[in-house]
């Protein structure tokens, strides 16, 4: 039967796609930085997959939920989502790489987002990124060797009148300069060292 043959063809293409894709994702994850081998426990995704089962348009929430679980999108997650939703892994990969929010490799425990919106730019946000790069010894988008901090430049955080600003975790810090940004980072490091993470509400 023709339809059976087409179905087999489509299935084998899907399978091939997913193999290629996983190879590619693994390669990217490895070349980007020397991270410990990812050993994400994919069973954690089960409640998420059940929650969005057969709901149209739920690919982005699925990816967001996955990233919340692992801090990034592990390569195995693509296969799991594909199997659950029937969306080709290539399409999932296409969506994951389109949006700025998604990461394909692990990140530090604390993500430092330095705002580079217009208001922050004219108030010299570059000086903050430069000072933090110097202090942490990493480039923009990289993670420190101890896995504690990832430095990121982001578009507007929406706190323009306090420019220049940065966000560490859920906290936003405003009216910065290079020195004060490093000072805040040092304070956070001290808190981490004494092992008493003080959560601000």
């Amino acid at each position, binding site marked *: 039967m023709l339809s059976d043959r087409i179905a087999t063809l489509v299935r084998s293409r899907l399978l091939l796609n997913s193999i290629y894709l996983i190879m590619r994702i693994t390669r990217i994850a490895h070349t980007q930085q020397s991270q410990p081998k990812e050993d994400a426990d994919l069973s954690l995704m089960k409640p998420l997959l059940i929650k969005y089962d057969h709901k*149209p*348009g*739920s*690919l*982005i*929430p699925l*990816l*967001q939920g996955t990233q919340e679980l692992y801090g990034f999108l592990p390569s195995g997650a693509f296969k799991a989502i594909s199997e659950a939703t029937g969306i080709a892994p290539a*399409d999932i990969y*296409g*969506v994951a790489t*389109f*949006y*700025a*929010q*998604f990461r394909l490799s692990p990140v530090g425990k604390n993500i430092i987002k330095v705002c*580079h*919106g*217009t*208001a*922050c*730019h*004219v*108030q010299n946000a570059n000086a903050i990124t430069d000072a933090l790069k110097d202090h942490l010894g990493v480039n923009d988008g990289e993670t420190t060797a101890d896995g504690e901090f990832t430095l990121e430049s*982001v*578009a*507007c*955080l*929406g*706190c*323009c*009148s*306090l*420019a220049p*600003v940065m966000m560490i975790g*859920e906290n*936003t*810090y*405003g*009216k910065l300069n290079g020195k004060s940004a490093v000072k805040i980072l040092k304070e956070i490091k001290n808190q981490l060292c004494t092992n008493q993470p003080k959560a*601000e*509400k």
Partner: protein
Amino acid sequence: MKKTKVIVGLGSCGIAAGASKTYSALEEILAKGEMDFELARTSCIGMCYKEPLVEIQDEKGKIIYGDMTAEAVEGILKSHLLDGKIDLERAVVAEEQKTPEDSFFEGQVKIALRNCGYMDPESFDEALERDAYKAIKTLIAENKSSMDIIQTMIDSGLRGRGGGGFPTGLKWKFAYQNESDQKYIICNADEGDPGAFMDRSLLEGDPHAVLEGMMIGGYTIGASQGVIYCRAEYPLAIKRLNIAINQAKAKGLLGEKLFGSDFSFDIYVKEGAGAFVCGEETALIASIEGKRGMPRKRPPFPAVSGLWAKPTNINNVETWANVPWIINHGAEAYAAYGTEKSKGTKVFALTGKIKHGGLVEVPMGVTINDIIFKLGGGIQGDKKFKAVQLGGPSGGCIPAELGDTIVDYDSVNATGAIMGSGGMVVMDESTCMIDLAKFFLNFTQEESCGKCTFCRVGTKRMLEMLERITEGKGEDGDIEKLENLAHQIKNNSLCGLGQTAPNPVLTTLKYFRHEYEAHIYDKKCPAKVCKPLLTYTIDPEKCTGCTVCAVKCPTNAIDGSRKQIHSINQETCIHCGECYNVCKFEAVMVD
């Protein structure tokens, strides 16, 4: 006697300025029992430059104090509550008394922002007290026809506040006239313009107004489902929206057969995942459907085939927030404000090198100078006003000479900029316009979805040219090449992103061409921003021979020993500016 109320402004910017620490400090003060008051919270009143803000309501009236850090709050509170003294120097709003900050509110008309900063955004009762859901109730009770409501919207003159400026009533009419079993209402809260935060403030300060606006839209066009597409970068806005939606559902204001009629309406929040292009309506729809947010050709317009191929009406947050007010007060009341073709008010986010940065809502038709000098208090450090950037990466720079331009859609368009969503970034003489154009091009080339070649490759090529110019490698003919490419990109891109991406370059070329020429031909940056073009020298009259600069110089390009006049070796100097930053005697000169 009514109990004294102490209210802390807890919007995102207030929290960034330390308002949650102030709130905790107030909780501790309350726990000590020395003073008795009711602690409450509100959102942003727009006065971001004085954050954190604390309002005290008692028999003396309503006083808002500015700069209320956790350290300062106890002292002010004691003198206010125990000694009965009002510290007018620190007060920013005081009923019946003048404060130094009154000029910030003079000339403002708050329609969209009517409740922001005046109520607890998480309290349903306070929202009801301030007329939430009154408009939709009236419409249903009076059994108003869709065409009547559409006519009211057309008469009000409300135009899309997201930047496009399309008449809202007409947009609704198209969606209404397309028959379908299912229609959708979408609220575009993907406020991606860097330098704009009015939608965030609105969602954080008055989520019910947006929900009610969407309900009225749904009732009018015959939609039963609403979606709010909100940036994930706005966690507080998403949280407060969800609280408001749950409250409305619990009180029977969202759901099946509302107010005893056949009208059913439900709303959910969809989090964006970080793509500027999703502000474009067809890209936004693709994103809600779980696809890459790439725009598609129009027609068909969303009013015919939108979300899940059903008729869909999309409006921006600020537009939706205006709708209930218009229904409650009538089209005439709204149209009384503004100019002939741009009615009503517009919210602007005033940022950059301005004294009073914040959120202002003014009637259309005021001048740029009025906004910057009267409301905004002028330029930081009383420097010279150079230009204002309107409309974000799609907009342009309006120079100080055109400061008398009135703010409405058509007058702003005539300058080459666009109204956009209302981000107003003010620049002084220390901003390099080529550096700014480079900044925006960098943004748009990163955010281009890649579908149209001119937008994908063209913006990249323009950026490379600007990079060369700011590095002192500009060549004769670069300006013409930039102009040519800019027009090609404008004409050959599918969506608003590409069509407007060259605007920052075109407007700076139009008004600041001499700066481009100075960079290219004289190899100078007049604003002294582009470091490769700067020359650092030491003024022998001012140099004291302190050696600080020589010690700090990373390439040992500074000669001179203690108490001797120093000099910079231009061949080894890398123009990092460290000597300029560390010199206490202003002896390092930049040219």
